[in-house]
């Protein structure tokens, strides 16, 4: 590892991040911390994977992240898409994530009721 390698990896990671949403891909990020998992994030994650597979959705990237902080809103799911603010859903259950997939991911209609923060 030298400084140039590091710069290359950094630039590549930043490009991948930028390009993914520019290409029309949607990123679904589940907060998989101990608090998230305790609140049911694993079931939400499994549901996402099942739904994506069953519906043959190709433009979705599934990712995980750590704790966002507000534990009363766990499990938290973040949706990143082109030309949209980052939308953060709270208290997501398998049932709600199905709703989000159909409405927000497939039909671009964010489910207002479960959004608690945008950035």
């Amino acid at each position, binding site marked *: *590892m*030298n*400084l140039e390698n*590091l710069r290359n*990896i*950094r630039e*590549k*990671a*930043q490009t*991948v*991040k930028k390009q993914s949403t520019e290409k029309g891909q949607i990123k679904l990020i589940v*907060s998989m*911390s*101990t*608090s998230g*998992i305790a609140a049911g994030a694993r079931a939400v994650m499994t549901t996402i994977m099942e739904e994506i597979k069953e*519906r*043959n959705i190709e433009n979705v990237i599934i*990712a*995980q*992240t*750590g*704790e*966002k*902080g*507000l*534990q*009363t809103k766990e499990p*938290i799911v*973040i949706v990143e898409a082109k030309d*949209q*603010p980052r*939308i*953060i859903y709270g208290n997501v*259950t398998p*049932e*709600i994530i*199905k*709703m989000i997939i*159909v*409405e927000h991911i*497939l*039909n671009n*209609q*964010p*489910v*207002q*009721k479960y*959004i*608690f*923060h*945008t*950035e």
Partner: protein
Amino acid sequence: MAKRLELLICTGTGCTSNKSLIIAEELKKEITKQGLQDEVEILTTGCRGMCEFGPVIKVYPDNILYAQVKIEDVPHMVTEHFLKGRPVKELIWTGDNKDEIEEHKHPFFEKQMKLVLSNCGEIDPESIDEYIGASGYSALGKVLSDMTPEDVINEITEAGLRGRGGAGFSTGLKWKFTRQAPGDEKYVICNADEGDPGAFMDRSVMEGDPHAILEGMIIAGYAIGATHGFVYTRAEYPLAIHRLQIAIDNATEYGLLGKGIFESNFNFKIEIRKGAGAFVCGEETALIASIEGKRGMPRIRPPFPAQSGLWGKPTNINNVETFANVRHIIAHGAKWYKNIGTETSSGTKVFALAGKIKNSGLIEVPMGMPLREVIYSIGGGMKTDRPFKAVQMGGPSGGCIPEHLLDTIVDYDSINKTGAIMGSGGMVVMDTSSCMVDIAKFFLNFTQNESCGKCTFCRVGTKRMLEILTRITEGKGKMEDLDTLVELSDKIKKTSLCGLGQTAPNPVLTTLKYFKDEYIAHIVDKKCPAGVCKKLVTFEIDPEKCIGCTACARKCPVKCISGTPKNPHVIDQEACIKCGACYDACKFDAITKG
């Protein structure tokens, strides 16, 4: 495969009571009847928040919302819309359509300032590339290519970074002492043995941004001249250990750990050591003993670990949060960092907000923010209707800060003045339903259990204090007990080797200082004002208010309430177990708790 049409039927409580489940069944039948079952998918969903217009059905991909659908509308809807493709206009919801994304800004995030937590909830903690993408390891690159170890130590010292484990010693000075200590082999230890009840700051950083800790440790290693680092954490944090190990493996693979990092001649490796969860092992000398494979017990200092630590070699120990701050100081400079926070405490502090607060969770605020702002602006105030009573800071080593001191600002020295300590960052908010004597007893019970037993006063003194507190909560206390508590506290503080004993009396001392009247109420009036201490609580039925509905008698688990219907009931005080079931069951406020 996705079907041609998708119907989302709301089955929240509101819509269900408007027969949405029956409508879903009817739709299914009608769709099958018309042979559309392979083309139309029916999904039952959670509440959409339009309860007064229920039942609501959303149709995709047409993006049509039907409201106030009735059972008799079903056949028409299926034929017209789902078969022929002509939406039923009369049923379409024409109100507020909410196509635009509304501005959702949660106040929880507004006043925070995230340095340590900047990557938590943002990047994938198991991807080193994402960490590097967020400027990760660039501070390490800068250190190894442009800075001498002395430069690094000066930068950290000038930034005014103080140990985030609680005591608040200058990190730069600690590094300097370890660097100056003679010895060819030195060690860096990350103290991730987080044990305060209600605290989870370190866990979240390890789980959310493990590389930030590694980067801080490697920089510390370079600064003090160490080649080997340990992360000491507890086995009860399996996910944190898992992610940290992935981070170590990935960093090693990338050559960020190992030999000749960044083409310099600096070598560094990191290993994880799992503790069994003894609270005393958060104390640095006990922690070192535990890593060495010995029983976790503190020893006399000096010599400090900086002179003689792990296996007798100079050792630098910092907390998780301290290490996570390092990369920001190197990247932005000491001056920038010094500008955040107050004169004596620079930077930010992470807190775990818990208890009777609306927005419980993990927060990071600049030093100098008043506690009131933390609790009311970020925490959103109280969760219940009951008013604020106190905030417990610093866990078992800390104390309770009452309402009138809420304008105290968050920094080491101001918090210390109240008798509490900054600690590692636990903040438990309490309302009037908490009994302060009981809280003091809870924390003392914790430290009493966790005392390693080496120092007599910590071992026996805390036991005696706990016995006195237990007596007080049972109504058997005497006024002299309060003096004995203070005297014992003083002795324990003075004669204990380590932080555990030296701070164990703090919860008792602060509650005695700010809530003495509650102790007196327990001792003199034999009453627990908050109604927590069972032996001091009595439930009584007011015969004026009791209408004899028998609700309480039916709920009583020990059947100690007698009376005939429509006549006032009576509680048998001898048999009553003070469970409070009758109090909750009474709809006429006839039962008093006192």
